[in-house]
């Protein structure tokens, strides 16, 4: 039982690590970035290509993947999303165009990775085998699982605190609430958006590297699967709430683990997404989201 709880926490941390960057961009600057999955994958893939040629310590590989993620995300923001925001007739049209553009942009790195790997899984070679296994009481723990939990929760809580308590976090949230007024109050929307996307991309890259270590290997399509889970975690937790993302990620993980432990593995997605559906019927704004108030 305790081992299952620990496994659920590890799985939740995996979903959380992936979802954090996506939630940050969506909940603050309103960018639902469907290229987040390939940013995650391609950052890990780039690090894999380097690790294949040069023996690097694990922390350096993680930093490399995070830097790659930030770079990809900045490029997407500067070359695609920013241009859409400039030209769109209204914010609603911009949101839709960004969503579609994200899907379109995602195809390019995906095709490159598929071409170079021929569909085979990739990892970081022998570096991925360094995880130690510890027996603590009845629990079997691995170093990488602990790293995933600590980094996932640390970043989740840290990001939630930063958004709530810091001046820049407040400026970022103000853009999410009312971009025009925020600009009039002195918040530089363009640079804050670029910075946000850089952080979101770095988080995707970090998640890509850590998950590749945790899973042993990923494939070019791994990001697509996690994208759906992250989307669900954000909606379940409540858009705009980092605490909600944390709760949503662990909620899905616990539901999936419960299903798998009871040998109903083929129902894992149906049960976890069914629970989300029920939750949204009862509380449409999600677990931690605030009810939207429309003024006329």
């Amino acid at each position, binding site marked *: 039982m305790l081992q299952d709880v620990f*496994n659920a926490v590890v799985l939740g941390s995996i979903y959380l690590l992936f979802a954090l960057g996506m939630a940050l961009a969506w909940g603050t600057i309103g960018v639902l970035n469907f290229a987040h999955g390939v940013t995650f994958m391609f950052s890990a893939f780039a690090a894999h290509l380097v690790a294949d040629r040069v023996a690097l310590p694990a922390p350096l590989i993680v930093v490399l993947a995070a830097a790659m993620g930030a770079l990809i995300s900045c490029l997407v923001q500067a070359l695609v999303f920013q241009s859409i925001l400039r030209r769109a007739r209204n914010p609603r049209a911009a949101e839709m165009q960004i969503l579609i553009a994200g899907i379109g942009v995602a195809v390019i790195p995906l095709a490159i990775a598929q071409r170079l790997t*021929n*569909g085979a899984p990739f990892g970081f070679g022998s570096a991925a*085998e360094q995880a130690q296994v510890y027996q603590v009481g009845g629990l*079997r723990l691995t170093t990488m699982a602990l790293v995933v939990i600590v980094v996932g929760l640390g970043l989740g809580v840290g990001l939630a605190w930063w958004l709530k308590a810091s001046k820049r976090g407040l400026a970022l949230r103000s853009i999410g609430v009312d971009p025009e007024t925020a600009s009039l109050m002195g918040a530089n929307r363009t640079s804050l958006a670029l910075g946000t996307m850089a952080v979101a991309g770095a988080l995707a890259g970090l998640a890509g590297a850590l998950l590749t270590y945790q899973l042993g290997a990923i494939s*070019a399509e791994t990001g697509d699967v996690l994208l759906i889970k992250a989307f669900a975690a954000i909606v379940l937790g409540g858009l705009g709430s980092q605490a909600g993302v944390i709760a949503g990620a662990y909620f899905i993980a616990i539901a999936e683990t419960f299903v798998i432990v009871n040998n109903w593995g083929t129902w894992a997605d149906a049960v976890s997404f069914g629970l989300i559906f029920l939750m949204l019927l009862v509380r449409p704004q999600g677990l931690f989201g605030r009810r939207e108030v429309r003024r006329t």
Partner: protein
Amino acid sequence: MSLRLRWARGAGVTMIAGLSLVAAACGSGGESTAAESAGDGKLPAEIKLVGVRDTTGPVAYAGLGAVKGTQLAVEEINNSNFLGEGVKITVTEKDSANSIETASSEVTSAIADSGVAAILGPAAGQQAAAVAPVAERSKTPIVFTQAGSDGVVIGKYTFRATSPMDTYYHLATEYLAAKGLKNVTVLYNATFPTFAQLAEKTMPDLAGKSGLTVVSSTAVQATTQDFTSPTRLIAEKKPDAALFFLTAPQSVTALKQLRQAGYDGPVLGTSVQGGGNLKSAGEYGKGVIYPTDFSPAQSQGKSAEFIKNFQAKFNALPDQYAAEGYDAAWWIARAIKASGSATRDGIQQGLAKVAAEGFEGAMGQLGFEGNDMRVPGVLVEWDGEAEKVVTTTP
């Protein structure tokens, strides 16, 4: 749900493609219209084939392998004047790009070209199931590789040059029995019909015959990426052997997490582990045993000859997909020779005739059940760098 959508979409595409084909099929009458003839005069100088396979996308490894195998076979057929002096086979490859619509469109175009004698079909099951009825209706012979789904070999004109996994999985259970390993666990991806059938139907049957007991059978989905919970359940059972029927990336993760869960017994997989897909598992992949339809470790007969020639041409070892593409092309060449005709009907009759007799190919002595190939199979072990053949002798 996505699979259902794919099937529904595939069915829709099939209907549209079928309607668009009516005129072309009626007009051509399925006859080759090559102007010149060579050899003994019955065959045209050029026999055109079209290959519609994934050379990009997630199953590109299967398509690219099949293309290379076909290239080698065609080179051998042409260089040896197998079909007679001056008779050459040419293959035009089209990328189905992991898309049912693209596969259907390319197959439809090939059928509409009366100069195309036969088609080498896509490896992805959904694509193959979508184009198979189109080929049947237009009376165009199509030879698939992989494409293990139902609804692919559906009539006189549809053929498959890959033996389903369940037809040679007995090699694994016989090995377990020979080693005295009785209690086994199964972890499988229930989303894919091939794995589901292997776990839910074939394995219980084979276990009964070999005196094995399946102590647990755990299903996961195609979306499952973390296996800490399923592998913990397996490790707790302390089986004599653990069997995986998973995709390549899933296998790597499951292997690693199974070892971390404390299980150190033998692990058996499927042919999915072939083609170097266990490389990224590193130490965790060492010692994994799996039956496959072909291995570059085979050292006898036509298989050894194929491996040698493939290495000489591509400077790399062939994988199972290359062997399947090679045998598919040779099957067509033998069919043309057997029927003495390069028309679509002639090739169809020839393919059936060759299937009735069987032949030796890269995958060994090939037999057939109707239009479906059967292979002896080979049991191999991944040693961390390459496959080596395993014998079932204790």
